[in-house]
């Protein structure tokens, strides 16, 4: 199918099978390898991207499901060359170790702050519950999201 959609604000047209995973479309066809594949079955959140303002798992999304839509990936957050407050806060709290879960965590946190700009710690933990980290743990990540929320006020 002829697929048209926007990625990080740019119009993209691609000739892809309608069932192609959004994850593969982003990583392999468009070279946006910031989005990661963890489990490939919706359990880990590493592939989280934002579609029309809402969080989605790109490993369980087919190309046809983003036709005409706005997709935001981790690359889009720092498109201007300046890190997003969430990214800066994660660096400051050392909330990154191997980094594989980080893009998904940041995109989920981004979705949270869009929905709820002033979350409590509990709300941050609840919202990020679908994003698994197997090395750093969550304390620094939660702190980073709270700090970013503070900075974005």
């Amino acid at each position, binding site marked *: 199918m002829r697929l048209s959609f926007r990625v990080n604000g740019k119009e993209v047209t691609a000739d892809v*099978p309608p069932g192609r995973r959004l994850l593969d479309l982003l990583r392999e066809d468009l070279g946006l390898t910031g989005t990661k594949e963890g489990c490939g079955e919706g359990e880990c959140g590493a592939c989280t991207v934002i579609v029309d303002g809402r969080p989605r798992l790109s490993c369980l999304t*087919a190309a046809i499901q983003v036709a005409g839509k706005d997709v935001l990936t981790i690359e889009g957050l720092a498109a201007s060359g300046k890190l997003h407050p969430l990214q800066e806060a994660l660096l400051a709290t050392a909330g990154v170790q191997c980094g594989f879960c980080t893009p998904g965590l940041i995109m989920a946190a981004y979705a949270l702050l869009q929905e709820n700009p002033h979350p409590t710690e509990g709300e941050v933990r609840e919202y990020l519950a679908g994003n698994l980290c197997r090395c750093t743990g969550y304390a620094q990540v939660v702190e980073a999201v709270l700090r970013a929320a503070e900075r974005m006020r």
Partner: protein
Amino acid sequence: MPRPEIVRPRDLAEAVRLTAEGGQPLAGGTDLFVRLQKGGTRPEFLVYVGELPELRAIRGTEEGVEIGAAATHAAILASPAIARVPIMGLALRTIGSPAVRHMGTLGGNLANASPAGDGLIPLYLLDARVNLAGPSGERSLPVAEFVHGPGKTALRLGELIRSVTVAFPRDGAQAYFRKVGRRRALVIAVASLGALVWLEEGRIREARLALGSVAPTVLRPREVEEALVGRPLTVDALAEVRNGLSAAVEPISDLRASADYRRQVAGNLLLDLASRAAHSALCGQGG
């Protein structure tokens, strides 16, 4: 493995025609894509119904709410139409993660017909009706008759789920939902209990219970519901009924839990219901 071809119908009528030609409806994909990846039965092609306005609408009426099959859990949670059915919110909030709730749909929960389907429990408690559209017209049946067993439903060839109708419960219902799993988020339940309880002068006038993951389908233990009538909603009073509930469930052992454990948790959940009631922590309980 490449995914089957996906077609996008213009409207519900075309979706029905394509389904009758052998297509399988696709909405959020959170269950279907995982099943296909794991080598489940491959449909000839998929019919993407996830964005058909007819299937996404959530409509409040005088008597209840009609929820389109392709309305996402997040859309339902955000809809003012469910304000009078707090049990829906309690259950849907526990599904997956925010991303999964923005993708998955109530129609998908129904089609998947998992006994662990969190979204199905309120439908059983509210005696919801499932509205189907097919080549020979529409029909509607109670949720308990729609779900036949794990992955098995009353859907006939060419039929798809159009919507679910939920009637508002009588005033005064207190709502409870709790899912027990290996961790708190993103879990498939080991056992879950949803309940609606009406009290009159401190005693149970009516109780509806629906349990998940303890039988081939979500279970309404009618004898236990009847045994609760007339009792105060206290831990001591419900303890007498707990063994009856453990006996009413028909769980299996699997990698998540043993049958005995599930039986015990089912009984314990009844006590948790009473314990929360004692702390005025049920939804709908006046302060």
